[in-house]
């Protein structure tokens, strides 16, 4: 079967350049400095950030900047087959390292020397584009914690069909074995890439097309994240003129 039908639609009814629905909630945990919950289609992730604090291990601290420590885990019930080991396997360690690289490039680490920021991500339901969703929810949690950043990091994945078409924000059925997939994270949706991760083989002629489509998808995701943070700040300060319920206001749905 093919990803795109002959009429130009995908299996879930999207066009190739459309992303899935983004549902979010900021400030999920009260004991954490920053927390966020994100649904990107059927991919659901929770994230908690414990803000700049003094590290317990003295040997790890750096004199000129802070340390970003990321942990990624998949819940045992997140996939169709029960996962035996949610943490510590090679894939979760890879994801944690990639997230650390992305956040270190965006966070102004020079503002907090000799300190540490912890980011914990938990995947509740898996439906493709896990790395991109983790980066997005981490950005929301860091914004909720008030950590200064150069810009919101927006991440999106992009697949290349055998016909040479670009499909953004792939789900789990589109993540087949030999389809090349590229996950790109940018700052503020512009041409400043902090993360580039490629799975499977991709021909050179399709590279520019895939990069362009992925960057546009990140710009799209960034507009959704920006609106989410703005809405959360307005609700927190109380600048909203309407008298609607806070819960309904936080659960604003963004879709393309």
């Amino acid at each position, binding site marked *: 079967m093919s990803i795109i039908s002959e009429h130009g639609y995908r299996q879930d009814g999207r066009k190739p350049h459309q992303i899935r629905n983004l549902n979010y909630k900021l400030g999920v945990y009260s004991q954490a400095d920053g927390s966020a919950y994100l649904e990107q289609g059927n991919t659901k992730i929770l994230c908690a950030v414990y803000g700049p604090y003094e590290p317990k291990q003295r040997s790890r601290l750096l004199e000129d900047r802070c340390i970003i420590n990321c942990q990624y885990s998949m819940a045992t019930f997140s996939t169709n087959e029960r996962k035996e080991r949610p943490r510590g396997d090679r894939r979760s360690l890879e994801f944690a390292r990639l997230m650390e690289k992305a956040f270190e490039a965006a966070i102004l680490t020079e503002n907090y020397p000799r300190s540490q920021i912890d980011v914990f991500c938990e995947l509740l339901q898996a439906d493709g584009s896990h790395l991109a969703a983790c980066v997005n929810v981490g950005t929301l949690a860091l914004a909720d914690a008030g950590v200064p950043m150069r810009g919101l990091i927006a991440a999106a994945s992009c697949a290349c069909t055998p016909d040479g078409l670009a499909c953004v924000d792939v789900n789990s059925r589109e993540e087949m074995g030999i389809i090349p997939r590229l996950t790109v994270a940018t700052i503020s949706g512009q*041409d400043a890439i902090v993360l*580039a991760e490629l799975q499977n083989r991709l021909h050179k002629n399709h590279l520019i097309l895939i990069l362009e489509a992925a*960057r546009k998808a990140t710009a799209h995701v960034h507009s959704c994240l920006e609106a989410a943070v703005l809405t959360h700040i307005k609700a927190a300060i109380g600048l909203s003129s309407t008298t609607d319920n806070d819960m309904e206001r936080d659960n604003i749905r963004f879709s393309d």
Partner: protein
Amino acid sequence: MEVQRELSNGKQVIPITDLGVDQLTYFQRQLDQEITFLTESLKMYIPAKIADPNNHLIEIGTGYFVEMSTEKAADYFRRKQNFLKKQMEVIEEALPEKYRARNTIIDNLQKKINEYCSQWGSSGFWMRIEPLSNCERAFFLSSFKQNVRIDGRKCDEFREVKVIVGSELGSCLVMLGETKVSAQVSCSLVEPSTTRGNMGVVEVQVDMSPMASPDYEDGRLGSKGLELMRILELLYRNCGVIDLESLCLRTFKQVWQIRIDVHVLASDGSLVDCACIASLTALAHFRRPDVSVLPDSIIIHGNDEKIPISLNIYHMPICVTFGITSDGQNIIDPTDKEEQCLRGSLIVATNKRHEICALHQSGNFLLNEQLIVQCVDRAIQRATDVTELIYSVIADDNLKRSNRQQVNGFSELISLNVLTSHQCEPNELIAPAIKIDALGNIPSIEEYIKASDNQMQIDSDSRIVEQKNDEDVELMEQVQSITSLEESKKQENKNPRDLEEVDELLQSIEEEFGNSID
């Protein structure tokens, strides 16, 4: 009185862990003095004779002597023994406590020193590796702006790659400048996983030897080792380098497991590039034993029974490391010191079919699309060149093995001083067997002529005639061997210098042959 005071002092409780380094040192010295005082009681004794049995001169102390009678002296010494016994009992109680306190203080002092060293180490002053000075860093960065490097390369040039395959199948050594990586491939029969029962297994093991660099620890991979392991696993498991389905013998029961061991022998930057080439060459060089699958058993044939089978390799992804400076300049194939000046590096893996196999970004820097496209184009050119190099090395080795010639393997490094002089042919080392034979011919001819001259003076005419016949036969044999060498040299496209040497040898032999006839 002094002992009692010490006891009263010892009863006080002092928290040792809260003290600083200076206070701990002071207490250590004080305890050493106390222990020395308590144990300093050794004196010398010599045998002697008594001159006057009735009177004795007794030493009371501090240089005073008193003349006593025998009875008074015995009573004095009895009282002194009682006094000493009491004192010894007191000392025996105090001395172990002093020793224990001293050991505790020494342990805490050592911990303080270790913490101090570790604090210094984390702030950039490493104990074993030299840090990069600010002058060096500024020099490197300014030379990058002028498109010049220390070893004479430009910013877009690679170092020379030397690939040597070993005498054992599946082993190879790759040298990329000063970076040296050895790879070894082996196989075994294992039970597959339940999810992929019809596919073989590829396992990658990376060994960051402390010989390569002082900051590598034995048994731990570190950040560079983890990165190297992850990229190699990404290439061999996800990109489909090897045909895994052909490694299946019995579905869900027995499959081949290919194990790739990568040993880093010397580290001077671009570690991923060198390790990738080494592991690919080892995979191409490897042969697994032939197997007969019977209905109830599996027969593995030895190398003498059946010829081992090579692996199915679909493509060869070649990694290229691009160092990125703070202002976005691109440095290809950085050395170890250059890597310390750079902001980060981008590793691109491509094959000669213009396919991108992996993108890896290490360090904290911002990429853009144009930079990625430039790096990919440059990496594809590199992949084409290195793939041709690997194929030529494997083809040469296969040709030698098929012709039953001796495969020297890694011993070439010793004979030609490759590891110490850092000079050798780029593709493969060719043994100079012909030159050795040519050099060996000259002294034997001279010796033979001298012997014949001596014998002519002594022996009779009949023997001289026989020796002349022997000379003729040997000369003819040598001429035939040299002509055959000349043919082999022409086939191998040797230098004109070698041809001139052969001509000189032929002329000298002809002259001697003419002289011997006369």
